[in-house]
């Protein structure tokens, strides 16, 4: 019999138990440090690295650009538009992405032809595009509205299902922690913030709450009759529920992270910068942090929030008195 399954049995019966709820101050402290790091890291690095969709600018893609050096692109652009900042990145197997600030129509056509000439490709293989500076902001504004509405709806849904606003509050706190941490890691790695990354963040939202709800449903089940229990306090019962779903939490996060990890790996290795890689990084971090926070934050916070309730307090005093 596998050790893991044996662990599952022991966790279920309470023979073995990790103290998630009791050591809440430790987890709070870790979360606080992590959040401070996640906030200060981007500041130290000089803020988020916003993609062209947020800054606005012109972009050229040179297809089949072979193995010519990237500096060639910078020189070519600067010959036509002197002094302009040029960012060059490899995309896919053989494409080169050249980004500049937004150029005039005529300039950008000139740059396009010059790039084709410099890289020895047909002008048709150099695509030019531009993004207005409002585009990314529009997407983000809509995403933020969506986020607000979603949080409101889900808080109501959870408060209604669990009949306790305290579960909603605990879940939202854990969620905020997840988002800040993921954003911090994202900025720390230095990936560009693109609309794809925004999608990734929105998914973490869904996943983090999803995971918390699964854990909370077990908590709800276990604490149905808590006042009648002579053996466990409310906090201990919550802790047992978390332990009982621990195997599921681990299994689920592994299963969720495997596909995301393979996108991240393949995305960064083969494709370079792009939608897949950006989504995958946000999700990879978010999934792990989301699972962690359901266990180490959401559940302790919930137990903490309810520990002051009169009936529960009396019940746990009775239990503790009975043990002496």
């Amino acid at each position, binding site marked *: 019999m596998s050790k893991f399954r044996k662990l599952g049995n022991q966790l279920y019966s309470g023979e073995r138990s990790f103290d998630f709820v009791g050591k809440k101050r430790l987890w709070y402290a870790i979360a606080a440090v992590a959040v401070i790091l996640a906030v200060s890291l981007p500041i130290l690095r000089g803020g988020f690295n916003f993609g062209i969709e947020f800054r606005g600018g012109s972009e050229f893609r040179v297809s089949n650009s072979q193995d010519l050096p990237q500096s060639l692109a910078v020189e070519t652009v600067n010959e036509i538009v002197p002094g302009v900042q040029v960012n060059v990145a490899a995309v896919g197997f053989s494409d080169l992405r050249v980004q500049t600030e937004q150029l005039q129509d005529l300039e950008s056509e000139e740059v396009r032809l010059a790039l084709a000439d410099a890289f020895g490709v047909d002008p048709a293989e150099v695509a030019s595009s531009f993004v207005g500076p409002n585009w990314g902001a529009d997407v983000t504004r*809509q995403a933020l509205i969506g986020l607000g509405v979603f949080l409101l709806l889900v808080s109501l849904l959870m408060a209604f299902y669990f009949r*306790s606003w305290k579960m909603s509050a605990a879940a939202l706190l854990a969620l905020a922690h997840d988002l800040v941490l993921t954003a911090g890691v994202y900025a720390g790695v230095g990936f560009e913030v693109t609309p794809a990354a925004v*999608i990734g963040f929105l*998914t973490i939202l869904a996943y983090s709450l999803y995971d918390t709800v699964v854990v909370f*449903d077990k908590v709800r089940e276990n604490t*149905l009759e808590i006042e009648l229990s002579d053996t466990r306090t409310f906090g201990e019962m919550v802790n047992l529920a978390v332990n009982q779903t621990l195997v599921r939490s681990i299994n*689920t996060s592994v299963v969720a992270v495997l*596909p995301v990890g393979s*996108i991240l790996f393949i995305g960064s290795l083969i*494709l370079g910068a792009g939608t897949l890689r950006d989504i995958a990084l946000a999700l990879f971090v978010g999934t792990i942090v989301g699972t962690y926070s359901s266990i180490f934050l959401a559940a302790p916070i919930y137990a903490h929030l309810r520990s002051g309730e009169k009936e529960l307090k009396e019940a746990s005093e009775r239990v503790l008195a009975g043990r002496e």
Partner: protein
Amino acid sequence: MAENTTARSARRRISWITGIAAFFVALITWGTVTAQPGASWTPELALDLQGGTQLILTPSIADGQQASLEQLNQAVSIIRQRIDGSGVGEAQVTIQGNENIVVAIPGSPDANTLQLIKASALLEFRPVINFAQSIPLGEDAEPVDLEALSDEPTTEPVNASDAAWVTERLLAEFDSFDCSTQFRTPGQVDDPSKPLVTCDDFLRFKYILGPVEVRGENISDAFSGTITTQTGASTNTWAVNLEFDAEGTSAFGSVTSRLFGLPSPQNQFAITLDGLVITAPSTNAVITNGQAQITGSFTQESATVLADQLKYGALPIGFEVQSQENISATLGDESLRSGLIAGLIGLIFVMIYMAFQYRGLASVVLGSLVIAALLVYLFIAFLSWRQGYRLSLAGVAGLIVAIGITADSFIVYFERIRDELRDGRSLEIAVEAGWKRAFRTILVSDAVSFTAAVVLYLLTSSSVRGFAFTLGLTTLIDLMIVTLFTHPVVQLLARNKFFASGHRFSGFDLSAAKASYRGRGEFRVGAEVTSGKVRKASKEAQKRQTIAERKARQALEDGDE
């Protein structure tokens, strides 16, 4: 007999899901065999996977007005018509988030096409001088050298309807005009003070039109409705009503007073949109109050279309290009291939892990995931056919993420069964009890996911939408699969000797349960609640009960009294 009903109901549920899959297979087969437009086994791909150019346009209207949804719809059909007319090929034009218009075209457009898309539509009123049915000229028609002919009117035209506008060159142009050829250059702007040779928008008739007399922005309103008789009774005849502003009223008044009484076709005036005649009614009265009614053989639909076109012309919308994104076809290919490879590798890892964790049950997971993937594919192919859905890279990412969420339903379910086994229940009972608890958890957690998908889909735009769509779709399919496939299959397996005996490779390893520590019976509380033996619930329990549980308890208490 109880076992038999369980098995029968399990088999029935499995046949349901098979039926649903078969239905869509049959539907799409029918679609492809009878060559329905758009029906295909492979879903249409969005631009980022297929390559092409995507333009995001924001309407810009003079004096800062906001374009209404009607006007956006009208703008979409006009842009589509312009692109089709320019021969760029299949374009996809959609409204996004109530304010933007997204144009996706294959390849990269030239400057002309861009200009064409950006320009605001021009609605004009010109008197008809002559018209004729357009007949294809055929291959051997001799090209006429128009430049050699005189373009000078023989006499000075006295008004816009004057036949003197028809010069030798114009007449030759009209005679050799073929509506089935590409007779207008994209983005062509006509001189409003000159006559014009053009066709109607169905390309059936060709016209010689006089100079512009009334312009679209002088229309203050246009709407369709049924004609009322003088006594006020409504008839079944549809008409389009037009109202002009002050300038339009006087201009239209002078047109109608001149045209009324002229012989046909010179009593007609043509309304052109982007140079094409959308209607050419004849004048039945002199209209000086600025309120005209166009009658004819309208249906409700055609009257509405015309009214919308006129209304759009009343407020010409130009477009500002917000972003122009170009994706090469090779990059699209690479993205799709890598996305699929990543998904496949992810799936293989998931299977290995599941086999390690759940042994025999992993085959149920594999089966469920395969069926889920099949259903997702069928739905996407179906939606791509019927609703014009395009699978984007963000959508593919949504699908890959969905593997995790879908597999989680199975994990939650299997863990609950194991919990029940640990409480010492037999497999068949554990499966039923575990399912009841797991289903609630799956339902509420999927509700969270689905809410996220719906909210994101409704409130956001562009790539976020493609992602939200696949997330929502897969959440629904997850629920379908777990109720109609995974659970019934496990029910049937529970009756199988290999699984029921708790073989160590079955995943229901009973030795694990027997070995488990079952000390002070601390779980009796929870177990008793679900078995309904505790009659007097504590306050805490009452507070956390769901509606169904409350009802059940109420029924139990009522029975006692």
